[in-house]
């Protein structure tokens, strides 16, 4: 090949690569644009403080679904936070040969398991024995999804803590658990919080695992052992319904959901900005 031909190919491939990067981000702009175009008009104060209205009545809101989502995320965090953080510290600090490798590998594999499968799991371990759909079951399904994410970020962040800090702790005679609780974890705190936020942003939008665990509800929270509403479930129900008014509600709900997810992701990213540079 002549040098000119090679240079031409180089230029062609470079432009193709740049073009594919543009094509890849185009859907994001299209989706966000449409959400604002369709949803912004239906987002108002009522939307955040009212219950859904029956078919035929205009207006109404998704306040119960927002509250329901928050309750289930809270339940999920209560389970997933301790397990994920303590397990992550174990992965980073253990010197055993095999177990950390196995756990790390399983966590990554679990991270790729479809969320609906976690829904089935929560159904078999909570809904079947209790004989009813419940906020508990939904929260647990979300917790299963959160654990691997929190575990792996915590591990990464704890690994970043300089060894000199641990040695300083040991040097003044602290036991291992005090070094971890008072030196290592506070140092890694910002990174771990980021991991938690990322996990929350991920499960906040999950619909599939809630379909047959939380089930959905058109009323306010009625106890942890009762079916409960969630914002993604409500969007789904509105989207597949045949009513124009509900479609507007679906767009509005999606706009609220995606804004929440983006804002939390952005916050998480800004919080660790300094850290990724240091790596």
């Amino acid at each position, binding site marked *: 090949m002549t040098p000119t031909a090679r240079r031409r190919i180089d230029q062609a491939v470079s432009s193709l690569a740049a073009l594919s*990067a543009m094509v890849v981000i185009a859907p994001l702009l299209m989706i966000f644009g449409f959400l604002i175009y369709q949803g912004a008009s239906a987002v108002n104060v009522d939307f955040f403080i009212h219950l859904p209205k029956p078919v035929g009545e205009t207006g109404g809101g998704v306040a119960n679904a927002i509250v329901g989502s928050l309750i289930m995320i809270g339940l999920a965090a209560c389970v997933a936070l301790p*397990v994920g953080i303590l397990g992550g510290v174990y992965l980073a600090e253990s010197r055993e040969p095999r177990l950390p490798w196995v756990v790390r590998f399983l966590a990554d594999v679990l991270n790729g398991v479809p969320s609906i499968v976690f829904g089935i799991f929560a159904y078999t371990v909570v809904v079947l024995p209790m004989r009813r759909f419940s906020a508990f079951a939904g929260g647990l399904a979300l917790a299963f999804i959160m654990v691997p994410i929190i575990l792996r970020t915590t591990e990464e962040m704890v690994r970043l803590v300089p060894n000199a800090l641990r040695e300083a702790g040991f040097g003044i005679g602290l036991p291992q658990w*005090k070094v971890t609780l008072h030196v290592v974890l506070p140092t890694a705190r910002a990174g771990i919080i980021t991991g938690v936020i990322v996990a929350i942003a991920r499960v906040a*939008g999950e*619909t599939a695992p809630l379909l047959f665990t939380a089930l959905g509800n058109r009323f306010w929270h009625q106890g942890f052992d009762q079916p409960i509403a969630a914002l993604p479930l409500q969007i789904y129900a509105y*989207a597949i319904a045949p009513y124009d008014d509900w479609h507007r509600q679906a767009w509005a709900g999606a706009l609220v959901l995606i804004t929440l997810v983006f804002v939390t992701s952005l916050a998480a990213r800004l919080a660790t900005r300094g850290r990724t540079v240091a790596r």
Partner: protein
Amino acid sequence: MARSVTLVEGASGRAWRPPAATRGRVGRIGDPLFRALLKGSAWLVILLAIGLVIALAWESSGAVRAFGLRFIVTSTWDPVAGDFGALPFIYGTLVSSLLALLLAVPLSLGAAIYLAELAPAWVRPPVAFLIEMLAAVPSVVYGLWGIFVLVPWLRDWVQPSLGRWLGFLPLFSGPAYGVGMLAAGLILSIMVVPYITSVAREVLLAVPNAQREAALGLGATRWEAIRIAVLRYGRSGLIGAVLLGLGRALGETMAVTMVIGNRPAIAASLFAPGYTMASVVANEFTEATSDLYVAALVEVGLLLLVVTIVVNALARLLVWSVGGPAAGARE
């Protein structure tokens, strides 16, 4: 994320246990307890994985006993007669996922190459950030967009013209419903692109610079250096990235359910409605009245679990082989 290099070599080992002389009395009771607590949490992850498989196997045992292997090779799905065969769902899952990969892989690799190798430094962070945001969009939002934007567009524009020019192929024949396999493949490709792109980008970033410099030093152009020295070096990791995308596509539920048409039939045409394993579980689980019906749906879930575990395990090993265990950890 940036290349994850462990900053503290040996952080895993030497710091774990201080010399016995420095440990106080509390340490003697507190440390074993604390270590047991940490280890217990790690074991919970193992238990979660094992419990997942056992619970699904247990709940689906009725269907496994009733149908055996017939379950995955027959295509009757008749809840009233209690006769279940999952072939249409398996077919729908495979076809929609492969279609998605066909569209997503070239784009993702192109974007990853651009971001890791070619883009000016100031372009990289914002574009990488937008791609991460694409991964953060909830599935149900993609589905909503699919129903009201993608499906009408396919029905009114794409499918009529595809049918006019390529209608002689069975692939593009039949009426244009909008909803169907093509819509599912398209929405899936949009959804898996960010996963493949960000893992592929990390793999490329993990390729040592000496590789590039050696090729450039021999007089290669930038693209030749990428092709010869970078892509080949990172090949197994890139295959892993594609497999991770495949795993996502296989298990993706809501968006697909909303645009695929949900009809348990095997059709040659991409325009025809189909059904996937994840969608049938999502749609029919709460309506399942008989024990056998529930068991059959759980077995579909179990199949999905097994397939995604295999695909993901393979993908992780391949990605780790290039980038180390930290690569792609948060995807």
